[in-house]
């Protein structure tokens, strides 16, 4: 078959158009979850202590326990959809997951594409960590140094903005970012303090310590836009389970300290 140049271009363009997605319908995800008898939760299983696997390779962590409790209270089966920092929101917006429970901090640019629950379910600090021998006490000391972050996470956004003279080295998931530091490829990292222990355990010569706090992140549940029923159900669920202490119990179990008293109104 001989193609003229013009029809060739039309063919290419139409192939691109077909590749675009068909989106959105009017049925609330809450009904679809109940109909299907299962809830698909996007979460990262390489993000200790929020999502990880125990010695028997069973998923555990704050995010997993929260997701499990939601599924139980909805009376449906929990289906974990493994994602990473960069792709969890695309998974939600393209309907490959029903909700995100994956250390999802609130960001204005994220709120343009997805909805958040009105209160978070957990929180953690994030710090700049480096070996003990390095003298670092603030953003200025990072100038000219290389710092490892996971692409498109809150840490990436913060470090990129606040340390413009540092070289930010970005990896696709938390596991690779940790690996970069464990293998001495990069010495400085922006992460939750819990991760520094993980690094020190795997590479005992590393002696990582928290140098300064980047910020505190509260983690909410991500819901696809246009699902008021599901959002309302989750909001009520969060309030109920904060009041009865379930949220605190789960948070304490993995992080060792309590949720603040004003946690319910922290996003207001």
């Amino acid at each position, binding site marked *: 078959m001989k193609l003229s140049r013009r029809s060739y271009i039309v063919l290419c363009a139409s192939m*691109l158009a077909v590749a675009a*997605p068909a989106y959105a319908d009017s049925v609330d995800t809450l009904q679809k979850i109940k109909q299907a008898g299962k809830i698909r939760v996007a979460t990262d299983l390489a993000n200790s202590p929020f999502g990880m696997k125990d010695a028997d390779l069973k998923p555990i962590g704050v995010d997993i326990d929260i997701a499990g409790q939601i599924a139980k209270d909805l009376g449906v089966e929990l289906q974990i959809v493994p994602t990473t920092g960069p792709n969890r929101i695309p998974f939600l917006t393209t309907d490959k997951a029903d909700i995100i429970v994956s250390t999802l901090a609130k960001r204005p640019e994220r709120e343009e594409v997805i909805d958040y629950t009105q209160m978070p379910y957990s929180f953690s600090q994030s710090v700049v960590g480096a070996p003990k021998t390095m003298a670092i006490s603030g953003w200025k000391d990072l100038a000219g140094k290389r710092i490892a972050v996971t692409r498109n996470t809150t840490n990436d956004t913060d470090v990129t903005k606040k340390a413009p003279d540092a070289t930010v080295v970005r*990896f*696709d998931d938390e596991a*690779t970012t940790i690996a970069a530091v464990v293998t001495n490829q990069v010495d400085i990292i922006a992460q939750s303090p819990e991760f520094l222990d993980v690094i020190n355990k795997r*590479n005992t010569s590393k002696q990582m310590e928290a140098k300064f706090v980047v910020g505190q992140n509260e983690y909410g549940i991500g819901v696809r836009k246009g699902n008021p029923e599901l959002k309302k159900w989750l909001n009520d669920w969060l309030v109920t389970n904060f009041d009865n202490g379930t949220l605190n119990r789960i948070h304490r179990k993995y992080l060792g300290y309590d949720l603040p008293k004003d946690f319910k109104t922290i996003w207001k």
Partner: protein
Amino acid sequence: MNYEFNFTAVLKYWPLLLEGTWVTLKLTIVTTVMGMVVGVVCAVLRTGGPPWARRIVGAYVEVIRNTPLLIQAYFLVFGLASAGVHLPIQVAGSIALIVNVGAYTTEIIRAGIDAVHRSQIEAAECLGLSRLQTYVHVIIRPAMERVYPALTSQYVLLMLASSLLSAVGVDELYGMATRVQGFTFRNFEVFVMIGAFYLLLAVVVRHAFVLFGLLIFPRRRKLGTAL
């Protein structure tokens, strides 16, 4: 289909995409030149070198062609660092690409060398050409000319494969595109755009190869026919 395309949100980040394109282009140029050198040297060693060299090159080609590029990159970026060899990530990543494409180039050029007829080499000997002259003018150049189309597509593939380095911390075009996607969440716009960027880069690489071919193959330049 009711997805509304919004390219303006993505275009706001064009400096990032441009930076990524530049990194991809730099990676491509460096790895193409070095990969070609590695390929020619190894092909010559594999066809005409001493037995031990043939065996070493053979092992190199087999190991590299039968393992994924991503693992080779992980090995060079993280593996060497934990063994105490400190290379900047971009350098380690480039080496991974060179090592990878070098193995493929070796096999392609070896095929070209095998296709040089024995009588050609005998004729060169009769004309009193030295061993080096025979290699350069009678073996390698016609061999390269014969397999040049295969080499071209291998190096276009190399340019596309450089996107894998985003996984080990190199912010090339794909890595930058993922970041833009993270700022805007306009996934399809970003993918359509970098698809077009890669297409453009592929056209550039292909044309560069055609022009370079005319430069190094005077026979083709004068006659314009395939060997």
